């Protein structure tokens, strides 16, 4: 049965299952991914079906998880590593940045290190500290890594397939607050390329660029704007490294205006890179400066004020209004 409706979490689970079935070299490893099926149940049932040698509960040590995954990849395995929450990837940061990202280049291409690192990310789930962060910029800046993030079930399924098939290390950010949103997954489809952005709503007055959890927010904003008579185009970026600037540029050159939206802090965030590059590419097309909507330069705040911190429909539309005012 090729087309099914899955929540994003289940689509990822299915994708892992498909990969484990298709290639005996694929491994799933991380804290609590086995019997428990992960704290979000994303790996539910996998250890039961594929055994402890393929779906591995690891010691509580993120550097060790990524470091041993590198070694396993050098031996010919394709480990898919889970980091339990965004805020817990940092103990592994050294292994990711100085080893995983650079090993292929260091070996002049003679070795490949196809490790996928799955990270549930972003806020909006009322969690305690370290459980709601969006650290994608800290990986995108680093050459040797690819950074992607799906916004819907179909992409969740297919982009993970593609990430696992890629011979490069891929950081796969999962929009955890959208885990339970359902969407159709066609497991027979021919998916878009992994790093291609997608226009998910067409419009003429301004472009919204978002990825992961903010795509839905932007679609809602565009719907609200439509009621006010404004036509917003929404681009789902899908890949943060590389960024598909061509698709963004084409959209901006149609609409003349761009607002980039992400949960991560604005300062040194993805929006800065997109703004800088699109301004360079489309200088004469822009009617207004590229505006950015995102987190503040603060630690992720306590849950009871996260709705004020997170970009919502209003802050997006406020930026659209400011853009249109130029």
């Amino acid at each position, binding site marked *: 049965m090729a087309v099914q409706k899955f929540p994003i979490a289940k689509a990822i689970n299915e994708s892992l299952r498909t990969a484990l079935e298709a290639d005996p070299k694929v491994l799933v490893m991380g804290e609590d991914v086995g019997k428990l099926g992960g704290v979000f149940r994303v790996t539910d049932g996998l250890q039961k079906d594929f*055994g402890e040698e393929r779906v591995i509960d690891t010691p509580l040590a993120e550097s060790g998880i990524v470091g041993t995954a590198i070694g396993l990849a050098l031996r010919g395995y394709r480990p898919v590593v889970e980091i339990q929450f965004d805020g817990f990837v940092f103990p592994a940061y050294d292994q990711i940045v100085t080893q995983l990202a650079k090993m292929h280049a260091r070996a002049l291409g003679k070795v490949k290190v196809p490790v996928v690192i799955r990270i549930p990310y972003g806020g909006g789930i009322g*969690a305690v500290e370290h459980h709601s962060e969006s650290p994608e910029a800290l990986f995108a800046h680093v050459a040797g890594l690819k950074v992607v993030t799906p916004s819907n079930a179909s992409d969740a399924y297919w982009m993970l397939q593609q990430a696992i098939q890629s011979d490069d290390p891929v950081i796969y950010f999962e929009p955890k607050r959208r885990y339970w949103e359902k969407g159709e997954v066609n497991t027979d489809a021919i998916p878009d390329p992994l790093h291609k952005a997608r226009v998910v709503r067409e419009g003429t007055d301004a472009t919204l660029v978002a990825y992961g959890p903010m795509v839905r927010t932007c679609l809602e904003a565009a719907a609200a704007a439509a009621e006010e008579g404004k036509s917003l185009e929404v681009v789902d970026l899908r890949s943060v490294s590389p960024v598909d600037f061509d698709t963004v540029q084409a959209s901006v050159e149609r609409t003349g205006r761009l607002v980039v939206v992400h949960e991560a802090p604005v300062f040194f965030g993805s929006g800065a890179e997109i703004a800088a590059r699109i301004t360079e590419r489309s200088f004469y097309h822009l009617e207004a400066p590229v505006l950015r909507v995102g987190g503040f330069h603060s630690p992720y705040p306590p*849950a009871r004020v996260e709705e004020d*911190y997170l970009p919502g429909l209003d802050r997006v539309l406020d930026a659209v209004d400011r853009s249109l005012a130029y």
Partner: protein
Amino acid sequence: MTVESTAARTPRRAGSGGKRTSASSKSASAKSTAADAKSAGTKKGASARKAGDGQPELVQLLTPEGERVVSAEYDRYVADLTPEDLRALYRDMVMTRRFDAEAVTLQRQGELGLWPSLLGQEAAQVGSGRATRQDDYVFPTYREHGVAWCRGVDPTLLLGMFRGVNNGGWDPNGNNFHLYTIVIGSQTLHATGYAMGVAKDGADSAVVAYLGDGATSQGDVAEAFTFSAVYNAPVVFFCQNNQWAISEPTEKQSRVPLYQRAQGYGFPGVRVDGNDVLACLAVSKWALERARAGEGPALIEAFTYRMGAHTTSDDPTRYRRDEERESWEVKDPIKRLRAYLEAQGHADEAFFAELEAESETLGKRVRDVVRAMPDPDPMSIFENIYADGHALVDEERAQFAAYQASFADAPADAVAGGEVK
């Protein structure tokens, strides 16, 4: 139990489908090496008991039945406890458990987002917490509600972060009790650094770093062991081995008992019955006195059990058997001390009844305080990020204030969208 035979109990390669000899049929050569490690680092004495099931010895002063065991080594640390002291320890455990239960309830009622229960670990926490002096400093994980209680931290302050109104709601220097730390193991380095500072000051305070069994795998904890040993820092690593790190049993972290980790870093490790408040108190006092006396760090493994879920978000039925929990029920730390108090005639019905009432009062207070806890002002997002200020924060604060104000100015129907986000 030797190092080797512990390892042999859990051959890891067996399941790999490989053609190797399994770990249980090791060569004589390996044996001769590992066998030397036999019970290395164990504290021995009359009080050392087998924990059952091939586990190594642990220090125990009170049996599960509440009988006092004589210990040549550790009795001295509890020798001056008066009946009043014993009742106070009992009270600490009861109050802590009551508080914890209230927090679990409050979470169920939606007043808290999450709660990590300490159920079952009261003795480990009260015993070690009461061993500290006022000038000592404590670095907890996120589960040390009983230690917080002993340090004099108002328990309602612990709830703020789990309600989502702050990320740490008390003044660490108010009671020398640092904020809860969520990133596993990282506080052990803070504790070590703090202890290095204590030593530099020539003070004779000590520091306690709490950690879990899972935490022992983190590189930070190993580095804390290294730094504390090299600088001979007055820090006690108090590891509550509650058998589980979320869904992972201790075998996923180590193939030998955790207290043995210490010796390879050059300081002693002791396993203590973590459900025996007297033993935990005694062993902690021993370690703290060593630290004060300039003898450096020690590792205590309090062998206990997480009776509840990892947190209120967790469902332990997915990964562990009920019988395991039941086997620990009989070792309950509170029952045990009560049996002793009653047998010794140190406490009467009136005491227990009064304590029951007192704990209910605490429960009510906690309930009331939490329910009245206001949400933070959104503008607080911009506070305390820097001690000396930061231009960007000032700019964003001003922008956000203007943005907020724009809703206040707007006509009512324009504001409606604000609720959607």
